[in-house]
């Protein structure tokens, strides 16, 4: 009797052992690379359809030429030689890089202290501070550009304010429809893209590293340049790219606030695809812009790395 009961429990426990899974689940369980690709696949699909394919079309089109209202599809570098030889393109590119370069430097320089403050001196409700800083971005980009138009305008807030206090007699004309206006607006419009990466990189710095630097004889300034700044460099680089790349090609802000001096390459590309109706030229300009941005980004990365090594 005792023997039978023993074998019964054995028989019952055997199938309960490892629960079998389906074959696909089994393959996925064993193959981590495959699992990774599967997780990425929706994004990869969108990237391929939305970026790679249009880019290839753009690249091919840049080697075409305009013919009346259509395209001459024989491949030629004609557009590239034009961009190289005609000074207008170079001048526009140069101005675009200048404007968005200044806007990037101004934005990062203004946002760094804010991010620093929240990372090191705010101990409660950090999330609330972050949300408050991104609050301006809850309104549309266009609205913010128009708001700056009101502030910087000929009879705008600044000019009428200064005039009523008597500081100036005639409105300051350089405020609106100028490069200054574009830089101010871009710096404000892209601030969130600087604050967030800067905050993240500063927040990650181990506070005992700062104490160690102080302990080893560094005053606040030396400590900042030898520890805090190099360690927050990833955030600075990320912020710089996040602002510089999109602002170089921006066309809304220069179109609304730039005036003749403030027009950028983005406006010109838009014209090629619009009023001028020279799509191949627009495509060429886009490709050239991309190449230049890549080149500048590489130089920037190289320079920051060298600088980091030298500071250390």
């Amino acid at each position, binding site marked *: 009797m005792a023997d039978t009961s023993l074998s019964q429990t054995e028989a019952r426990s055997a199938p309960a052992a490892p629960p079998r899974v389906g074959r696909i689940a089994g393959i996925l369980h064993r193959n981590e690379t495959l699992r990774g690709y599967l997780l990425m696949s929706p994004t990869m699909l969108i990237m391929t359809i939305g970026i790679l394919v249009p880019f290839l079309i753009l690249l091919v089109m840049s080697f075409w030429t305009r013919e009346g209202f259509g395209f001459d599809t024989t491949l030629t570098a004609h557009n590239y030689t034009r961009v190289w030889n005609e000074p207008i393109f170079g001048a526009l590119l140069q101005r675009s890089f200048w404007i968005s370069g200044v806007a990037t430097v101004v934005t990062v320089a203004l946002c760094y202290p804010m991010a620093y403050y929240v990372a090191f001196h705010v101990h409660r409700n950090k999330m609330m501070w972050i949300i408050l800083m991104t609050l301006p971005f809850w309104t549309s980009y266009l609205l913010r550009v128009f708001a700056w138009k009101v502030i910087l305008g000929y009879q705008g807030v600044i000019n009428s304010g200064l005039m009523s206090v008597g500081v100036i007699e005639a409105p300051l004309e350089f405020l609106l429809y100028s490069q200054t206006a574009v830089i101010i607006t871009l710096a404000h419009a892209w601030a969130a893209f600087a604050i967030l990466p800067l905050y993240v990189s500063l927040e990650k710095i181990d506070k005992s*590293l700062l*104490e160690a630097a102080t302990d080893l004889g560094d005053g606040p300034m030396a400590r900042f340049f*030898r520890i805090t700044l190099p360690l927050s460099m990833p955030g600075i680089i990320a912020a710089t790219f996040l602002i510089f790349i999109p602002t170089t090609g921006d066309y809304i802000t220069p179109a609304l606030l730039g005036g003749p001096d403030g027009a950028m390459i983005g406006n010109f590309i838009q014209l090629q695809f619009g009023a001028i109706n020279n799509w191949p030229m627009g495509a060429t300009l886009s490709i050239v812009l991309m190449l230049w941005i890549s080149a500048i980004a590489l130089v920037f990365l190289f320079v920051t790395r060298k600088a980091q090594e030298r500071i250390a």
Partner: protein
Amino acid sequence: MTTSDGFISIRHVNKFFGSFQAIEDVSMNIGQGEFFSLLGASGCGKTTLLRMLAGFESTSSGEIYIDGQPTSDVPPHHRPVNMVFQSYAIFPHLNVRDNIAYGLRKQKLPKAKRDEMVEEMLELIKLPGYGQRKATELSGGQRQRIALARALILRPKVLLLDEPLGALDKQLREQMQLELRALQRQVGITFVFVTHDQEEALTLSDRIAVMSGGKVLQVDTPAGLYETPKTREVASFIGNMNFFQGTVRRNGAAMGAVETEGLGHIPVPLDQLTKPDGAPVQVALRPEKFELSPTRPEGALHAVEGRLSNAAYLGERSHYYVSIAGKDQPIAVSTQNLGRMTGAPDISGDAPMWLSWAPEAIVILDADETG
């Protein structure tokens, strides 16, 4: 106020964080070249005191003198002290050489001289040739050594160490303890060492300050703390201790006597006995001071019979718990296993066990209500 009585002189220091008092009227002197430990459970204020020496925390009242100089108005980067942090705080963006040479920048040394000093330090911490390694490629023990070298290269008057061995595994920790002690003798710098590990403090220190609740309970040599603790708290924090309630019975002879629960009328050394006749006291005896034998030992001044209630075999030692009449808690006894043991002794039998001890091993403490 004289400040010449210690290389580091801490005078009536208090520290408040809001309404919480982290340090309560701490005064002590630390001598030059001494290996001094601050020992206590977490939250006892030992790290706060260390950070006050480094200058990262200010004193709410009182003054700390280092080498005769008051330090209240000296910011941390101008103090002649350096610190080894608990997390080591190795700069991740610098290699080993630049980490060690970090504090030398101010001295504006020629590069060759600086490199020579770094090499010397790498020799000292037994990591020669590691100069070009990245900080992120180092193991815990290596980081600990580099943190040490980075502080020592500046030849500070005092080196502060905040539980520097806490993150290491047991074997490495024991090895580093010996190295640290040897290093301290070699460089001759005053070390102030914070730890919660009593064994570590006993191994390393010339003197130890036992802290609890922001107060210093006792400052003494390791042997002094262990053999003659001043309070029950110190006695039970360092090692194990058996406590008995007792009443003083002076009889004018070379030995005093205490009427002790469970042990009866026992002799104690006179120098331990400061209380008047009839005063309540506590009698304390370390587990290893007892001698355990199955029969009444011959020639013992005093012995008491009990029964073994529990035993544990710990390799080099065995722990026994002996119940005696007249005391609720069994007495802990620790003996060295000199001969080969065959495991824990049989505790099922109620064979009597005799406990004996030398009167000199007894410590008399003030009576304590919690006991």
